[in-house]
């Protein structure tokens, strides 16, 4: 079972689906963010298992770059959440439509 590529791909697809379901079904902005992280990790798993399959190091470097981008994303996303939570006192992702409005000061 651990010898076949397909079981790793199946695990990665299950995790990606869980992350996608988290994005579409939850309204809490923290859980949306964590689901995005889980989807990035599932893609990392696909990259690394394909790298093991073809015995090349390139996908591992790509996975490393994805992790670095996730770190940068975490910093910006979390500071944005802190600012919006201080203004609105809610974690509902629906109130974040304020970001798309032209006149957002009240």
């Amino acid at each position, binding site marked *: 079972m651990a010898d076949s590529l397909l079981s790793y791909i199946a695990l990665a697809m299950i995790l990606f689906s869980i992350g996608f379901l988290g994005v579409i079904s939850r309204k809490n902005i923290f*859980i949306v963010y964590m689901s995005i992280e889980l989807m990035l990790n599932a893609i990392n798993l696909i990259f690394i298992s394909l790298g093991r399959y073809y*015995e090349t190091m390139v996908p*591992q470097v790509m996975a490393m770059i994805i992790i670095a981008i996730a770190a940068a994303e975490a910093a910006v996303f979390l500071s944005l*959440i*802190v600012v919006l939570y201080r203004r609105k006192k809610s974690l509902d992702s629906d109130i974040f439509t304020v970001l798309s409005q032209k006149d957002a000061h009240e």
Partner: protein
Amino acid sequence: MVDIVFIVLALFAIFGGLGMILFAQPIYCALSLIVCLVALGGIFALLSAPFLFMVQIILYAGAIITLLLFIIMFLNIKDVNLPDEPNKVTTIFVGAALLIPFNILILKAFSTLPNKPMHILGKDFGSIHSFGIELFRGWLVPFELISILLLAALVGAVVYARKGSVDG
């Protein structure tokens, strides 16, 4: 033996992920996400990527999710601040049913690849040495761009979180 390790790690990862989308409190979600990410790190080690195993533990579980936990505790969230989610379970089940054909498509596409044994390779593959050689020979420009991106993210986070712009 390796099969048992793989199955246990996969179950930890899947249940961690399910716990993440089912718990109501963000703090429990973050803790079960840590379980999921550490189990995924173990699976990276099974796939002959020991360096990425370390990076996963140190960077993901140790830095990113700890930052997330810190922010969750720092905001001091009460139950009133959490959004109502009346349709959560329904959406999850309907979404899961809609995602099954997509998953079958991907698995069918990958099952056309010829079967190859995936046992753990020797100590050169995936080590820091070969990883660094690959990174700095073929991926130097993306590496430098990542440093610029991290710097931009740092500046952006500081600008967002400045006190004056929040109160004004």
